[in-house]
């Protein structure tokens, strides 16, 4: 707290400031340990042998590194009577998450744009009503949703799941884009209107290219939500089309007398790898996107 903000003009100097600097790094480092601790346990456990896990403490570094558990989790762990590991289900998740993320992001952008740059009477009310959808507990909508999917003929299919995620993602994506576009000056859009550009023309040629920060935030958020979803996945898919979270649950809860912690952990990491990757690669843009106004009130 006491560390000095060194904004160009005011440069901290002297031994006191240096001590504070060291203290700052110590505190930051300690928090890094706190956040990394579970990941460390997961990774180190996943490369240990079962015998080593049983004997040693879970804090100890692995004595010998083996990727057997990873291979098993990916290719041969048993989910019920089928022993193909997570591999097939992983692909299911990709097939579901990618279209759902793209669709909900695009529609959210369109919504946010129409609500801010082409304001029509009642736009605020429309937005308020849509936003409420972000806060509805998903257990509540399970049964009516199932009914609706059944009537649409989409029950138990991947398109059905894409529809569900798009619909319930719309509230958040609209929120993100609306808040971003509010911060964008109307001048450019108005100038384009004067030049005779239409609604979609302005959207695709002017607005969309400049909203990269908001797109990044939205895509990260949506991808995380959709990839990690368990409830909709378990309720609206059938056996072989289960997403990876459902398969992971089955692997972790399936045990033959001995609990294979290393396989469980490897499976957990594999299932979490795509979202982890997105955060690591796009994390920098995430904060930048947030400061560009995506989530400010």
């Amino acid at each position, binding site marked *: *707290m*006491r*560390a*000095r903000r*060194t904004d*160009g*003009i005011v440069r901290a100097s002297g031994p006191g400031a240096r001590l504070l600097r060291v203290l*700052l*790094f110590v*505190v930051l480092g300690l*928090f*890094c340990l706190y*956040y990394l601790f579970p990941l460390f*346990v*997961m990774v180190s456990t996943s490369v240990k042998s079962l015998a080593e896990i049983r004997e040693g403490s*879970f*804090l100890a570094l692995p004595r010998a590194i083996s990727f057997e558990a990873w291979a098993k989790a990916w290719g041969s762990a048993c989910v019920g009577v089928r022993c193909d590991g997570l591999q097939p289900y992983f692909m299911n998740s990709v097939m579901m998450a990618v279209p759902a993320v793209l669709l909900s992001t695009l529609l959210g952008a369109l919504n946010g744009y129409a609500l801010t740059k082409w304001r*029509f009477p009642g736009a*605020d009310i429309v*937005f*308020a*009503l849509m*936003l409420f*959808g972000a*806060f*509805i*507990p998903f*257990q*509540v*909508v399970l*049964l*009516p*949703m199932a009914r*609706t999917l059944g009537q649409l003929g989409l029950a138990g299919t991947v398109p059905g799941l894409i529809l569900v995620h798009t*619909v319930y993602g*719309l509230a958040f994506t609209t929120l993100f884009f609306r808040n971003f576009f*509010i911060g964008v000056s109307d001048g450019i859009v108005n100038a384009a209107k004067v030049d005779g550009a239409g*609604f979609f023309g302005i959207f695709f040629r002017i607005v969309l290219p400049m909203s990269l920060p908001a797109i990044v935030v939205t895509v990260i958020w949506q991808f*995380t939500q959709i990839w990690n979803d*368990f409830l909709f996945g378990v309720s609206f898919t059938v056996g072989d089309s289960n997403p990876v*979270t459902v398969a*992971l649950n089955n692997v*972790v809860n399936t045990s033959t007398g001995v609990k294979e*912690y290393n396989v469980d952990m490897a499976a*957990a*990491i594999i*299932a*979490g790898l795509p*979202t*982890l990757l997105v*955060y690591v690669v796009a994390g*920098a843009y*995430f*904060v930048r996107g*947030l*400061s560009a*106004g995506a*989530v*400010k*009130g």
Partner: protein
Amino acid sequence: MLRAMSRTIERRLPLIVVSPLFAVSLFFVYGFIAWTIWISFTKSGVMPVYDFHGLAQYERLWATPRWYVALKNLFVFSGLFIAISMGLGILLAILLDQRIRIEGAIRTIYLYPMALSFIVTGTVWKWILNPGLGIEKVMRDWGFEGFTFDWLVNPDFAIYTIVIAGVWQSSGYAMALFLAGLRSVDDEVLKAAAIDGAGPWRVYTGIVLPSLRPVFLSVVIILAHLAIKSFDLVVALTGGGPGFATDMPATFMYAFAFQRSELGVAAASAVMMLATVCAIIVPYLYSELRGARR
């Protein structure tokens, strides 16, 4: 004539684009809420039935001891979860905002738990907190014989393990929001304050934090909505146990709807949850819209 018509369409286009999406939201959100409210007034058991049955399900709900446990847990959990995540978030954001060279790496470390679902991390947290496998065992193996950390299996304390894991997952996100807020504070104001001789403490408490007010609001809303919806967290970590000591409204509703075949009671509890959500969200939406009008 034709041009006039196409101009009309052009003018209405925003409305034409938004309307179908809005209609879909109305149906999937408000239609389903209406359905739930209706079910809460019926005798629905294993499957929904649609004959009006009065307030019986609500009476049943408020006579069930487990519901009170769930409510109490919700308040204990949300209070602690929101307060600690916010405190930690703002602290880390300020620390990270000190022109640190490896900020990117540290930020990613603080943020990554948000990327993982609790279906993924629940297993490892369960392990770390389990007295026979995790921290307690390690401490005892290191010679601290009397060390006890059995919150996970202690009905009076199990709810706090949920707070620990919840904070771990979400405080990084709060940090990111605050950091974003700090970045958009006008540098000129800070320089002026520094030239006036204001110390860092004064700068933060007097200028920076007050200017973050809208960010605080966003963070509270996002954390509150995570708290009310918290389901995965409980299921993965304690399964509602020991006993039902860590039951929350979301898990309560799920248990009654799908394990107990008591759709009516479940719907009644869902209506209660929705009412709570309304109480938090409506004021937020109000301020949000006022802000937009300005």
